């Protein structure tokens, strides 16, 4: 069936429509800025904002080693601007309680044997228990804690000497899903793909309605479906280009892992982008001007994608009605997918349920958009 439809599609018209759309994007500094510069800027800002945000985070230390070395390490922590000591001596018997009460954000445990391990160049493991309820903060604590330990080791060791293998075993409480210091990039990817696909398409269609070119186009013997397809093709490419740019930038700047399958990510990306494009088309069918399209797109896509997807706020802490709304936010499912693929190397077995949800959302959105896209003017 798809083939027979494709056979009837005026490929040449679609190609010209897509090409024309590309001209619009390339010649309009504003849309070019939204399309390329903004995602990169956001990755940059967000990445560094997260990293730089930590300042005097309260970290308690339980020191079983009690040597000059262990005290020096603690000193490194507290001398850095990132960490500070708790006001009073914490209760060692109940580390979880310390975090639950909010007396500290993290607890560093130094087993006995640090000094010996350093002397003999042996492996040694520090324990870091982190409150994960603010996952961006927790991620930063992990990263900076490693930084402190590394600088301690560098300063201690005369150059050329073999580094002892001191590692930190991170354990995150209250949010066991937190496994990496790179939580923001997946979320950013979900938001930017949504933005490019929904915001830009709704604006470009609204622009044709506003200026009257849509009316002109609809008097040509080209089907509205062809018009739509031609218009959205460049944005699909743009969305994927942006996605790739963000991933590369995040890799270079923040060393984000890519544990899973790229193909799987592209597959999910296509579903997600299709859903987002449908939202864009839907929005454009409701409005007459670019201004209103932009407003509506921000409210209908950006806002839920940022607030209700689990990007910033954890869904499990939300009131019930917001939880229910979050179930129709495609970004929520895409976020789980992309975090899973990038950070944990999750495959289709673990992401099956998200795939089903996203496919259902996409199908519903495409149907609504196709029904709503007007072939007449009013």
């Amino acid at each position, binding site marked *: 069936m798809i083939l027979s439809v494709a056979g009837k599609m005026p490929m*040449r018209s679609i190609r010209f429509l897509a090409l024309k759309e590309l001209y619009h994007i390339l010649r*309009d500094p504003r849309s070019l800025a939204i399309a390329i510069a903004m995602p990169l800027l956001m990755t940059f800002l967000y990445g560094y904002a997260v990293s730089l945000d930590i300042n005097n985070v309260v970290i308690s230390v339980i020191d079983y080693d009690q040597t000059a070395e262990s005290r020096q390490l603690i000193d490194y922590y507290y001398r850095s601007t990132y960490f500070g000591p708790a006001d009073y001596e914490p209760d060692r018997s109940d580390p979880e309680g310390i975090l639950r009460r909010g007396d500290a954000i993290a607890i560093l445990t130094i087993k006995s044997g640090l000094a010996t391990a350093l002397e003999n160049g042996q492996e040694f493991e520090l324990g870091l228990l982190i409150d994960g309820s603010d996952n961006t903060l927790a991620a930063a604590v992990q990263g900076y804690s490693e930084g402190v330990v590394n600088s301690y080791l560098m300063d201690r060791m005369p150059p050329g000497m073999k580094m002892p293998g001191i590692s930190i075993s991170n354990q995150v409480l209250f949010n066991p899903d937190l496994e990496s210091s790179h939580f923001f990039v997946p979320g950013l990817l979900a938001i930017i793909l949504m933005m490019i696909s929904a915001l830009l398409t709704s604006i470009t269609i609204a622009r044709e309605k506003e200026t009257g070119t849509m*009316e002109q186009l609809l008097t*040509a013997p080209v089907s509205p479906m062809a018009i739509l397809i031609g218009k959205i093709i460049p944005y699909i490419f743009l969305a994927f280009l942006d996605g790739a740019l963000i991933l590369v930038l995040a890799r270079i700047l923040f060393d984000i892992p890519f544990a899973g399958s790229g193909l799987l990510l592209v597959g999910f990306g296509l579903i997600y982008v299709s859903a987002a494009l449908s939202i864009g088309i839907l929005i454009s069918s409701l409005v007459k001007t670019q201004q209103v399209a932009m407003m509506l797109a921000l409210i209908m896509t950006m806002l839920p994608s940022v607030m209700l997807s689990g990007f910033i706020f954890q869904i499990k802490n939300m009131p019930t009605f917001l939880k229910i709304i979050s179930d129709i936010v495609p970004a929520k499912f895409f976020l789980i997918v992309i975090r899973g693929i990038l950070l944990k190397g999750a495959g289709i077995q673990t992401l099956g349920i998200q795939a089903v949800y996203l496919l259902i959302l996409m199908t519903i959105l495409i149907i609504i958009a196709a029904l709503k896209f007007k072939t007449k*003017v009013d």
Partner: protein
Amino acid sequence: MNNHAVEINDLSCHFGSFKAVDRISLTVEQGEIFGFLGANGAGKTTAIRMLCGLLIPSGGGGQVAGFDILKQSEEIKKNIGYMSQKFSLYPDLTGRENLNFYGAAYGLDKKQILARTEELSNRLQLAEFIDRPTLSLPVGWRQRLALAASLLHKPKILFLDEPTGGVDPVFRRKFWQILYQLAEEGVTIFVTTHYMDEAAYCQRISVMHRGQIILRGKPYDLIEQHRAANLEELFIDLIRGRENADA
């Protein structure tokens, strides 16, 4: 089948309870220049949109180029050219890019587009302007380009909705010369205008007022019948009479 270019009967378009077009009937002959007149908001654009398949009529029906406006709008689209009241070329594209694009939308192939662009560029004297972004062109040239775009696929009927709005008199006269040439070649021209001097260039006119046609005929016959000095005076008297009657 008859051979009128356009024939409509009791065509209506309602927006809610408002009757933008209220049971109008008219015929246009092939190769005729037919003027569609009326004050702002009379319903001219709405009527043209129904003829071009852009709006679904609320009542009545008719045919354009031999095809039913209710059922065969795809066929109609292949046979008509339309120049909307708004300037409808893409301002960020050059004239040539616009023509290439609309040519493809009308299903022409590369060779046809090239040939037609060349031909129309000569005919409408566009050569000097065709490779500039349309945004930078004076209104008169833009409208000529828009005309070229609507002529690419050699339509049998041309619908022009206030094609000369905001254009200076010299340009307007040139524009009408072009329309005359087209009509001589057999193209039917259905044109709306605000300018009374342009109404006089039409072979026949219809005057719309509040969704209805209140006057129709050949311009000079109408002047004689109503013993008016000119068309302008005739319209003013007529519309004033209507409004007094309505009050």
